[in-house]
């Protein structure tokens, strides 16, 4: 891959916010090549943000590329109150949503933004016990597909918040900014998304455990959370 002047960027060890601020200042003064370095740490988050909405690899990649170009074009409009990564992801989310609207495949989904619902409506799969599925089990393609399919089953508003918070590890506040909703809405959607994932996956993982994880040694006596 061609070098994009990584050796001329900020010194290692500085915080991401300081690093980003330094790079942005230099880019705006004319060192445009440094934009490669600015976006590199966020490439993955960008893709997953667009994929969470579009659910198609090619469309998600196109939207991620378009986002980077828009960010370059509009960098002067970036205000440092938000993190650069949050600003970038919000552009990605808006671009992906616009693509969906354009493709006329946006399905009507509930936008009920009531406060966290303690009275039901979203219930988990009630099971009597749970044996931990170890991370080593992710070597099995079948398990990865099961997890990916479950996320694909979620309505878009739940999928995007789950991917930002639980996959990309955005804070609640960052996810709220990126999605342009309140923190309360993020928490409500996160609760529902997590319970939906549990409901979809717990019975399948429990019933397939022997088939999926037969290669892994039993952790009897130490496998419970």
């Amino acid at each position, binding site marked *: 891959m061609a070098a994009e002047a990584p050796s001329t960027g900020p010194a290692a060890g500085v915080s991401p916010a300081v690093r980003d601020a330094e790079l942005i200042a230099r880019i705006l003064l004319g060192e445009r090549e440094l934009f490669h370095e600015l976006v590199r740490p966020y490439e993955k988050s960008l893709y997953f943000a667009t994929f969470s909405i579009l659910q198609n690899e090619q469309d998600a990649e196109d939207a991620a590329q378009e986002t980077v170009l828009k960010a370059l074009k509009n960098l002067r409009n970036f205000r440092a109150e938000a993190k650069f990564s949050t600003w970038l992801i919000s552009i990605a989310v808006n671009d992906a949503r616009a693509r969906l609207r354009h493709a006329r495949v946006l399905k009507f989904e509930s936008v009920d933004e009531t406060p966290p619902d303690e009275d039901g409506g979203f219930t988990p799969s009630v099971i*009597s016990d749970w044996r931990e599925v170890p991370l080593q089990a*992710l070597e099995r393609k079948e398990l990865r597909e099961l997890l*990916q399919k479950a996320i694909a089953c979620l309505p878009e508003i739940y999928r995007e918040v789950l991917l930002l918070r639980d996959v990309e590890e955005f804070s609640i506040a960052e996810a709220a900014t990126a999605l342009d909703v309140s923190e309360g809405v993020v928490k409500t959607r*996160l*609760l529902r998304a997590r*319970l939906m994932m549990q409901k979809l996956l717990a019975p399948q993982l429990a019933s397939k455990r022997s088939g999926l994880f037969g290669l892994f040694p039993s952790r009897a006596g130490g496998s419970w959370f």
Partner: protein
Amino acid sequence: MVLNCKHMWGQISNYIEGDVDPGLREAIEKHLAHCRHCAAVLDSTRNILVLIADDRTFELPVGYSGRLHARLREEIASRE
């Protein structure tokens, strides 16, 4: 404060986040200590979140980064 299972489910996400006040945390933990169903729901939810957070669950398309930077290079060159 006494919680039933439905109240517990409504707080499960905030509890995982560590975003509950001390009184509620105590009530949740008291409930979990005697309700094996809710304990299993919490354990399974946590386990599923650990699995989906792992890098191996979602992978980037092969060549994604290279194509992204190639497009960016073209754009930067066109603005020179």
